[in-house]
């Protein structure tokens, strides 16, 4: 399934909110929790990470990965936490509205 426009940022924030991750780890985590139902362009991940870091929602530091490789780990900042919360609420409201619309039957109009 293709990713909806503009939802990648939210997914990244959610992924790193569970535990700090490196770039590839973010990709794996999203695939894992979506049970491989979402398809993410690998190249589009990094500009999104850099943008989120530039905006101060995630922060990065260098560490060691599972297979003994130097890797850059991203974690959620306090501002990012708030951002994730508002984005989640916004998404839920939006989903409710869309759902309501899509389930509308002719007699309800």
């Amino acid at each position, binding site marked *: 399934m293709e990713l909806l426009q503009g939802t990648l940022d939210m997914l990244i924030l959610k992924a790193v909110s569970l535990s700090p991750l490196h770039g*590839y780890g973010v990709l794996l985590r999203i695939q894992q929790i979506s049970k491989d139902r979402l398809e993410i362009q*690998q190249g589009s991940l*990094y500009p999104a990470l850099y943008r989120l870091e530039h905006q*101060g*929602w995630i922060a990065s530091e260098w560490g060691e990965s599972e*297979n003994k*490789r130097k890797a*850059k780990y991203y974690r959620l900042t306090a501002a990012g936490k708030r951002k994730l919360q508002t984005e989640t609420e916004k998404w839920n409201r939006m989903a409710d509205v869309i759902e309501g619309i899509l389930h509308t039957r002719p007699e309800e109009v």
Partner: protein
Amino acid sequence: MTFWSRLQSWTRALLRRSRIESEMNSELRSHIAAYAEDLVRGGTPEKEAIRRAGIEFGSIERVKEECREARSINFVEGLLQGLRFGLRMLRKSPGFTAVAVLTLALGIGANTAIFSIVNALFLHPAGVAHPEQVVVERARYLKIGLNNIEVSAPDFAQVRNSTKIFASAALEQKGDFNYTAGDYPVDLEGALVSWEWFDVFGAKPILGRVFTAAEDEPNANHEIVLSYGAWERWFGSSPNAIGRTIQLNGQPYHIIGVMARDFHWPRPTTDLWAPLGLPSAKYSVQNTFNEAYLAVARLQPGITFSEANAYMALLSKQYPNARVKSFAEASEWGMFLMPFAGYVFGDLRTPILILGGAVAFVLLIACANIAGLLLAKAAGRSKELAVRAALGASRKRIVAQALGENSLLGILGVLAGLLLSQLGLHELVFAAPKDLATGLTFPLDGFVLTFTALVGIVAVLVFGSVPAWHMSRVNPYDAMREAGRSSTGSRARQNFRAWLVAGELALGLVFLAGTGVLLKSLACTANVNPGFNPHGVMTAALSLPKRQYSTPDKQHSFFRSVLDRLKHAPGIKDAGAGDLIPFVGANSSASFEIQGKPSPPGTPGPHGDVRLVSPGYFTALGIPLLKGRFFTEDDRKGSQFVAVIDDNLARQYWPNENPIGQKIRGGAGNDWCTIVGIVGHIRFTTLVGEETSSVGSQSSTKGVYYYPMYQNVASAGFLIAKSHGGAASAETAIRQAVRSVDPNLPVSDMMAMDARIAESLGPQRFATNLLALFAGLAILLAAVGLYGLISYSVTQRTNEFGIRMALGARPQDVLRLVLQQGGRLAMIGACVGIVAGIILMRAMQSVLYGVSYADPLSFIGAAALLALIALVACYMPARRAMRVDPIVALRYE
């Protein structure tokens, strides 16, 4: 997203570019490697896994570029590139750089200079903490035309007792102190203050302490606080001065403190402060209308000026008794407050605001010109930009580069402007009339620096945005197809620039011609015959202490012996004395009566300027005798009371008869005095125009009557010594003559009469200098504007010139073509400038003397100068046009 995190991100991008690049690289590569490993683990052969990982990731360079964009590294990069490129460009064209930086420096420097003045005068008066909280209490009687005068002790007491409104308050009265320091006694200017004076200004001594309440009691011990200047001059900046006792006015005074260099209030010339010690009786209601003091106060924190002023209006309506009430209401009396800075510098506010507007305008023109210059440069670069845009440089990045290039110019301009403003301020202060410049310093403080930086940023944005916008709008397709011709600004834009330049030229001509007219007027004024001969005349002031010279007899014998010695001093031709002399800025006038001609009741009666003079006054100043005789040594106490009048008075009150032998009374003493001589009228306060007097300005044909000094009180006055040689040689003679009669008496205000007259022209000279300065600025800016415009158009027309030359046009023809374009603008500018200049000068007619407002020489000279400058400004780009190689020009097409 916070501003802070962005800023951090930007600075990181700026400072650690190479590290970020390498980190980005290794991060992306490790991603691909990790993915490949996972694929291998899933059973893919290693080679195939690496290939697939690379393909699925996509173009690593594109991802990197997107990452850079995401972190705004590109913008920073563009700025840096712009800076580097700008530096190269500026180095490559030093002529352009010099012109642009100089133009910008003039604009920024002029603004900084004016702001420094505003800063020092209004925003941060020297030595005063939180000046906005300091107010001056004033009184007024609207019914009798007194709108703004000092206050009485009871007025002040009301303020001092309103502690909810005022945190502190103090009172001041001027006092002079005679002090013998070296060879000659000196006259120190003192301020008698109530003890809280320094608290009101928030001023602390740099040495010792200030007064206590107990020291401000009547007949308390004598304490003084020295000003920094006095401490330096008379006590050699010695810390041991504290605790010393010195003799002032023959009484011992104890030095307790020294104030900082920048604190000199109430006057810039204050030498020392002493306690006022006002007895409590002075504060009684009887003295409500006896105004004699300067009162200052500091507002309580949180109280605004208008609140305090409203409170004063209420206080003014609360009368302590019926007498006060009736007089106050009849004369419309009231108390009010003025901001301290407004009180001290009030009359300077308007001219400085006008000046501020003028320099802001100058900066705007400077920016417009630089924008023009940059446009001319950018026009030649449109192809380069088109290529870059076609290769994918974002608009943002191109704008960043343009800004980078321009900020370099801005930084250079700010630095040069700061330098220029410091030099200019120095000159300006020296050119200013003396009373305006005394004691003023213009510190280059944080406020001034901040202001200059802000002006620089605004300037860069103003002049930089035009070329940046122009550069970012380049359409790669059109630009490359038409080989750079598509970016010729629209016809309307070109026209607008041409009008702007014509306007600048017109303004330049107005200022140039105005300067010429004012210079001529100044020269004519300086040549005016004042009615006496000032050359070789030295003058000095002195004041006889009342204690020692208690009777007129003692005063007369002092003046007699001083003048006698002076007259016989070597090199001195003549000597005299008078209560007032010409060109000291003071004047005095009084009504008088003519015997046998009583004035009808209800009319003001005869009026004239009055002087008390010694016999030598007329001869030493070279005032001509028209009829009768001068005063002699025999016109003394006990002999017949006499008077001398000038021809103006004679004409006014005895038009058809001989005034000699007539008697007048008034102005000084109460006896009838016989007129014994008529002398020529002399100029007294100004060389031309209305004379000034204590009440305001007065007609220059007002008559004068003189009484003998030796038949009147003579407690203070001026000595006049006419020498055979230069005036300076008389200085020692005057000092020695006074010292040999009274060694403790200080002589002050020693000045040659020629210098006094020159000083009276100070304001005119200042105005002329200022206008000359603006004329120079305006003409320089106009030249730069014209140069920018012509050189832009030459670049645009390179192809055209190439074709013309290929068809047989000679270089001279091309030169003529370019000069014609500039000449047309100069012509329009000159015509508009001449008309505008004549209108402006006509409005200024009242301050001109001896020259027509449409002085042909000034206007023709200004027009010629303008034409010359325009020619030079056009010739430089025109030479470039002449050198166009038709082959090259056409091949570029």
